[in-house]
């Protein structure tokens, strides 16, 4: 049933000059679908981790502790001003190598390329989330905080009931922007042979000469993922909307 539908689809696209014959080959089809799945896994894992990293970095930067702020600040600047690919190499080729050498006698290295991509992309985007959250916290009007204090809110209540809810709403548009960037960034994982959609496609197009067809599929897939992320962000913005704050 599915097989015949695919055959018809491939034949129809052939008329347009697009050669999608690879979907009729079972092993290539499963490889491609596995690639789609791995990209989705990468996104679903890095989105929560990057948000957690962002909150942690923003908290560290605003903590005012002299032993904590300068190192975190340096980390933020280095992360913002160096390519993700180079960070990935520094993590995977250097740190991973050191860990492997240290753990040689203890049964080998448990870190896989996939884990490294999750760590590096999460930390990279976490830095940008932290910047958005900091801007959101600064955008909370002083008057609102003073009003809450005069109503007898404690420091903790002020933070959790007034400051953070408002800051989150102010930061939400840039957070969603960062998450769209994050989805696009997962394509870099192909550089260290993580079998995500770009990597599996390269494997397929080196066998067959169908680069254009596969690139169109990849672009469509990333377009779908980024559209879903911005749609989710938009719905969340509408759900959290408070009268009097923002449009």
């Amino acid at each position, binding site marked *: 049933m599915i097989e015949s539908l695919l055959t018809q689809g491939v034949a129809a696209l052939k008329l347009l000059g697009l050669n999608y014959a690879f979907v009729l080959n079972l092993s290539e089809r499963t490889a491609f679908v596995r690639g789609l799945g791995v990209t989705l896994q990468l996104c679903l894992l890095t989105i929560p981790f990057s948000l957690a990293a962002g909150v942690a970095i923003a908290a560290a930067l605003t903590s005012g502790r002299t032993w904590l702020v300068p190192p975190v600040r340096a980390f933020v600047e280095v992360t913002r*001003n*160096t390519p993700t*690919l180079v960070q990935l190499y520094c993590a995977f080729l250097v740190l991973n190598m*050191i860990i492997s050498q240290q753990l040689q006698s203890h049964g080998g290295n448990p870190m896989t390329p996939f884990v490294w991509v999750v760590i590096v992309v999460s930390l990279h985007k976490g830095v940008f989330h932290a910047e958005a959250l900091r801007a959101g916290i600064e955008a909370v009007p002083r008057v609102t905080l003073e009003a809450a204090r005069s109503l007898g809110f404690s420091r903790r209540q002020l933070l959790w009931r007034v400051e953070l809810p408002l800051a989150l709403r102010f930061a939400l548009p840039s957070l969603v922007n960062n998450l769209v960037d994050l989805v696009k960034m997962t*394509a870099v994982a192909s550089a260290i042979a993580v079998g995500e959609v770009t990597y599996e496609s390269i494997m397929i197009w080196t066998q067959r000469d169908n680069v254009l067809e596969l*690139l169109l599929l*990849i672009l469509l897939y990333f377009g779908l993922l980024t559209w879903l992320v911005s749609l989710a962000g938009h719905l969340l913005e509408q759900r959290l909307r408070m009268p009097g704050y923002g449009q």
Partner: protein
Amino acid sequence: MVSELTLAPPAPTWKLAGSAASAWRKPWFLAASAVLAVLLYWMLTNSTPAVLVYLWTWSPALLRGLSANIGISILTMALGTAAGLLVGALSFSPLRLLRVATRCYVQVFRNAPVLVLIYFTTYLFPFEVRLLSWTVPFPDWIKVVLGLALPASANVAEIFRGAIQSIPSAQWEAAHSLAFRRSEIFLLIVLPQCVRRMLPPWMNLYAGITMSTALASLVGVHDLVDAAQIASNTVARTDFTILVYFTLLGLFFAYCYPIACATRALERHHDRH
């Protein structure tokens, strides 16, 4: 207010004297002299660590790689800016079809992963072009420039559109009432203000594009990342691998961080005026 004014004058002199005295205690100055002293000691006693000797012998290759990255980024930005301004101007066209087309262009190329676009141009364009009777080679690095220029132009178009729209429409109306022509309003009134507003995001974009040039190594262009990989594989020593990859990070940082600082300074300057 009054007390501030009376207290203000002595402050600069105190600050000057302080800075002159503490010039020797500046952290940068101290770090630089410490590094120089260590280098001098190594040179005199002939005991420089082998890793650093390797790094020194490989440094010309690394710097050549960096110059390839910088060249690609500058060409990309020139091409992307020209195309982006054109697309941005077309997005204000009275023709609905043109507006929709530019909207699609901007959406597609801003939402596509840069790496995928680089693969796109690298594998789809031929490796040589036939012009009449000559065959002109079409090297990979030019294809990378084209691949990076696509998202760059989409971003420039968006920056341009945002800048034009940020100029209050009252200025157009006021200039109209002063009998300026449409082209004059644009060239003499709107554009000069736009350039100021576009500069910080444009510089941000340039830093971003420079960082994206690292992806060129994945399609076989001999850039800085490629040079570092070759060096690390040739020397094949653990300590050198660590050093060369962190040098890579440091070189990109040294190029992009000043741009980021300048952008921030410009933004602060604009906020104040």
